[in-house]
């Protein structure tokens, strides 16, 4: 039964993530092809999908992990400590897979754009080309890890503190801030417009800040769920 929780999460959620990314890429590409009929294509469609939507996907998976699956594990006789330890390890794998899918999306898109003769302009500070796989991978891995931890923290806060969970919403926002202003584009979230450090922050610095946010997010999540009651209604989707 060792690591059975992480194995279960990997067996169920990783294929889900891959399928969602595949659908996302196909839909994005079809949309771009449709737009190309009426307008010149000058920017990367996948750049927008990956930067905007994918992080919300992993944020949602963080919510799912901490809200639903924690309860199921405890119901079946596992401890909160076991679950959180294995879920944290799993988020590393989950976000790595999501980042790999993102990088693959850029590569595939670069092939499509090249065939169509379109420029794959990326509005990214840490990589210029859709084929710069290592930089794309680590940048998105860091961003996704932070957003997953923020999702776990926020839902744990509302589960534990009810309306007081709004505090964790603010903390979650603070956690993702370093990722937004040093890795992603600063104009992509409200309140952060004008705080763009992407030009000055090196990738290692950005990754370090994201790693710290991720660790703080998970530590705070553990503080909230370590003795959280499992009660009727927690299971509601």
């Amino acid at each position: 039964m060792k690591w059975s929780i992480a194995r279960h999460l990997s067996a169920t959620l990783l294929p889900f993530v891959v399928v969602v990314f595949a659908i996302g890429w196909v839909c994005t590409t079809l949309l771009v092809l449709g737009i190309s009929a009426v307008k010149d294509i000058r920017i990367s469609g996948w750049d927008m999908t990956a930067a905007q939507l994918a992080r919300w996907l992993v944020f949602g998976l963080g919510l799912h992990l901490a809200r639903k699956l924690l309860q199921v594990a405890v119901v079946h006789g596992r401890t909160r400590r076991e679950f959180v330890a294995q879920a944290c390890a799993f988020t590393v794998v989950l976000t790595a897979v999501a980042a790999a899918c993102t990088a693959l999306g850029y590569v595939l898109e670069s092939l499509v754009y090249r065939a169509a003769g379109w420029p794959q302009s990326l509005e990214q500070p840490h990589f210029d080309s859709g084929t710069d796989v290592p930089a794309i991978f680590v940048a998105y891995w860091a961003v996704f890890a932070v957003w997953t931890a923020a999702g776990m923290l926020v839902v744990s806060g509302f589960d534990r503190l009810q309306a007081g969970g709004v505090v964790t919403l603010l903390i979650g926002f603070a956690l993702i801030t370093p990722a937004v202003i040093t890795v992603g584009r600063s104009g992509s979230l409200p309140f952060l417009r004008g705080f763009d450090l992407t030009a000055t922050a090196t990738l290692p610095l950005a990754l370090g800040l994201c790693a710290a946010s991720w660790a703080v997010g998970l530590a705070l999540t553990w503080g909230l769920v370590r003795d959280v009651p499992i009660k009727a209604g927690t299971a509601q989707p």
Partner: protein
Amino acid sequence: MKVDVQGLVVRYGDVTAIDDLSFSLAENKIYGLLGRNGSGKSTLMSVLAAFRKPTAGTVLVDGEPVFENGRATSRICLVQHGVDPADKGDRLKDALALAGVFRESWDAECAERLMDLFGLPRTKKLGQLSLGQRSAFGVVVGLASRAPLTMFDESHLGMDTPTRYAFYDALLADYMAEPRTIVLSTHLVEEQAALLEEVVIIDSGRLVLHEETEAVRSRGTSVTGPTGLVDRFVEGLTVLNQRQLGPTKSAVVYGSLDRDASGTEGLELGPIPLQDLFVHLTEPAGVTR
């Protein structure tokens, strides 16, 4: 699995749900946990299953503390309404597979047999089940868990009569095959009384009674007859309830009757159902019916 509860207190803000509760359960018996609505039954079971941390006191199973102790919790299963064993979007077959992943003692064959017994559709999603079906699925999860301490918190809810009887038969058959400590919380006291070897009655979070079911039954007697005779007979006894109809009086007494036969002349003495005893024992102070 042996259970020891000492000085247990659970508070929700200003409300004390469990108030200095102490009792022990021996292993391999079927216990009935009885109490009125809001008496603390579900809270007590939640603490026994480590769903909730107590405010004070200790809960030991086979000498081990329960809360956040995997050695203990892996051997405990609580089936409780509203606390689902899988995601509502999961199909039942996937929910069973999940139980097998998480629980070492899971008996997949038993689960399949019970799914057939209750006629549960394996491809239906948990959230699409009726209340009775969800209860039946809870019974499947509870029995197939093979947990040495298995607890069912009103697991009959929504079940029709034939399904409830199938549940009782399955429970007894499983208990005979795999003896373990089973706790049933129920309001269907009389219907489930035959299953229960011992009853634990709690009220307002406090222990009212913990005895063998037959011993409890034998202590309750209804005494009916002319008012004067009944009054003389019950003098010095614990009277749980009295009713007067014209010159005839009926009283429910609790405790062993140490009366010779001559004292019962002109009176009708009879047993009272466990359910009635439970009602009288948990009657709020000052209330007579």
